């Protein structure tokens, strides 16, 4: 059995397609690390000039304003809220000038919490706006984006304030290697990994059909052979994570690696999307994302195995890629979403957003949770493997 696995591994890693895929992935990773990652400009950045301009404007207003009984309501409102706001801003400015990042983090956390209280809860959202970066043309959900960003930043900076590790601007702006990984997991990385996994494992059974007599000689049952093949494909797909390590190192040496105890904000949906924001550690986030990636790899590989023995066509295996994009048709922001859709395994493709709960915020539902996702994916994987077991018992179909 070990011999079979070793042989399959050797074939897998000497397969020309797989080598090319690994090289492409490596190049793409390095391109990202060298050219795209430094260009990343967070909307919630540490911008001294912006704070200073805002602070001085408001201070000037406070110094000159004269509130009478017939003053405009907005003037009164500003007169009431600016002093506390400015207090936080001046603390932030002083802390930045003194290089005291811990005080800066604390003041910033308060600032975000207080700002959101005013911008969101006061109901004056027609006049008041979050950081302008959210209000780009074509963004139909800019206000809600800003709300999430402010509250999650408040939680994040609150954690930085009493952190035991060294702080830096890179950590604040989420530029370190681990935080870049986290951002990518919330956007395109899951798709890339899953598509690479599909391409890697696509021909793992079909290549044997050219040498049937050799394959039939192995003293293993077809089901066992398929499972071992699946294991090899899983190991090979995990190698694609290793291939991304150089890119990770490049970002790490440029911007710092960050630590595993960095905070990642997790959202819990509550009625009217007024949920709670809490923090989890980066380590936990990565472990749970990895668990979901592993489950997805298992599903894709077992689907490849199942399709290979039933339909015996490499092109059909490629159509498995569709399952990654089915979700986009029914999970749309702003739509009314049925709960039963969360029992479909396809609903859990956006791994990072599922783990951090951002998906719940965007879709305004509480049905897509991480635990449920892992259970649904696990059930789907087991079901497919059970199907493989049944099908491989039919002699005509086994490889």
């Amino acid at each position, binding site marked *: 059995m070990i011999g079979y696995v070793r042989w399959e591994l050797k074939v897998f890693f000497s397969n*020309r*397609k797989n080598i*090319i*895929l690994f090289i*492409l992935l490596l190049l793409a990773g390095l391109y990202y690390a060298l050219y795209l990652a430094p260009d990343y400009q967070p909307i919630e950045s540490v911008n001294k000039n912006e704070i200073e301009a805002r602070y001085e404007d408001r201070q000037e207003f406070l110094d000159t304003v004269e509130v009478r009984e017939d003053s405009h309501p907005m003037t009164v409102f500003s007169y009431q809220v600016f002093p506390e706001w400015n207090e936080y801003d001046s603390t932030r400015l002083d802390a930045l000038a003194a290089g005291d990042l811990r005080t800066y983090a604390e003041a910033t956390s308060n600032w975000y919490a207080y700002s959101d209280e005013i911008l969101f809860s006061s109901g004056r959202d027609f006049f008041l*706006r979050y950081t*302008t*970066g959210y*209000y*780009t*043309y*074509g*963004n*139909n*959900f*800019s*206000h809600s984006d800003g709300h999430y960003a402010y509250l999650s930043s408040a939680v994040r900076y609150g954690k930085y304030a009493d952190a035991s590790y060294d702080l830096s601007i890179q950590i604040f702006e989420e530029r370190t290697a681990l935080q870049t990984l986290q951002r990518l997991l919330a956007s395109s990385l899951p798709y890339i990994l899953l598509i690479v996994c599909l*391409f890697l494992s*696509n*021909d793992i059974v079909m290549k044997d059909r050219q040498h049937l007599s050799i394959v039939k000689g192995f003293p293993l049952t077809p089901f066992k052979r398929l499972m071992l093949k699946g294991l090899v494909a899983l190991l090979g797909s995990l190698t694609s994570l290793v291939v991304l390590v150089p890119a990770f190192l490049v970002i790490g040496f440029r911007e710092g690696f960050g630590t595993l105890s960095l905070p990642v904000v997790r959202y819990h949906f509550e009625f009217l999307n007024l949920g709670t924001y809490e923090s989890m550690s980066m380590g936990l986030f990565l472990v749970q994302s990895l668990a979901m990636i592993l489950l997805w790899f298992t599903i894709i590989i077992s689907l490849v195995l199942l399709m290979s023995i039933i*339909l*015996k*066509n*490499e*092109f*059909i295996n*490629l*159509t498995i890629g*569709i399952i990654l994009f*089915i979700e*986009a*048709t*029914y*999970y*749309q*922001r*702003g*739509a009314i*979403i049925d709960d039963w859709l969360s029992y479909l395994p396809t609903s859990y493709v956006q791994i990072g957003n599922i783990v951090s709960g951002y998906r719940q915020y965007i879709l305004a539902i509480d049905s897509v949770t991480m635990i449920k996702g892992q259970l649904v994916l696990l059930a789907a994987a087991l079901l497919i493997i059970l199907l493989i077991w049944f099908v491989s018992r039919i002699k005509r179909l086994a490889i």
Partner: protein
Amino acid sequence: MFRLMKTIFLVERKNLKFRSIIFILILFIVGSFVYLDNSQFRELKPGTAAEVVALNSALDQFRNVDATDSDVASPLYRNLISQSSNLANRTLGLLMDDQDTYIKGATELTKVRDEVYTMDGFEDVAQFIPTYRQNQLDGALFTEIQNQEEKLLVHNSNFPTYIILFLFALGYGWYLLVGIFSSDILLDETNHKSLVNGYPLSIASKLFAKLLSYFLFVFICLVLTFTIAITSAAVIYNMDLSYPVALFNGDYLAIPVWQYICIAFLYLLCLSLVAIAVSILLNHCFKNLYIIIFVHFFFFFIVYLLPVLGKWMSFLPFNYFNFQTVADGSVSEMTGNTAITLTNGFLTMLLSLLVIFLFIYWQFHRSQTKYNRLKDDQGGIL
């Protein structure tokens, strides 16, 4: 040659590859209906509301001053203010269900906005304002709606919007679909060389038969997809073939939906031929299915990876592999080359087809003569 085509059909009839393509296309049509039902794709209400918020954010960049006084207000600021009053007309039109106000506001807005792109300090507010291309497309669309006195489509559950979505997605993926589907077009020949070389036909007619049978299949697929999508859209929504659709072809214009469908159909047909021809070419160079698929992907994305290529060379076929982005002018916008239009796309594709066929014929003819010479040298045994 037609007997060979018949043989190819008989052999390939049971190939699951062909069925899987049809399966994908049907799944795609179902998905597009579900998507349109759920998404805010081209919904006017959220779109206009977001536009108002974005423009207000742009105005936030300035201090409030008297916009009528040209001493204190910059031209950019005055332009933004007048945009915002036209935008208010659009909001009013939506709110009061008054089409004329909306369309009037929209056409005025595009005219006013047209001037902003050359003003000083435009970069600071660029992210809050549609790009020049989007504005021109909007302008063409609303002017045409006004001229033809068409109804305004506030929601997206209607025939023209579905067609736009359908061609958007199909135009995006069609090259890759046909490219991947045809990527093993000649691999059988390499795998069973002696068998294939035994056909009593010239290399040209053999190639031609293969190409034609693949093309026929893609043609059937395309007709099937268009028919199913259009008929089901006509059943679900009401058929409306004369509604204007804006597109880019050197300048920005609006054409009726039926013309748009026809253009898209012809374009995708040409694109299929190009994809198959490129597949044949790649099959000649590489003998590995996956390498061919990867190269197809590379060709498709080359214009995004290296926009400079498109800037200097508008005649490269790679610029035209994505129907949607050519038709809405975004390739032209991205590369900064206004010569990348649908018309040039047709010409370029036909020309590159000619070049590819000549090259293929030359290459395969050479290999055939080489093979024959070898056979002659060894007394007919090979």
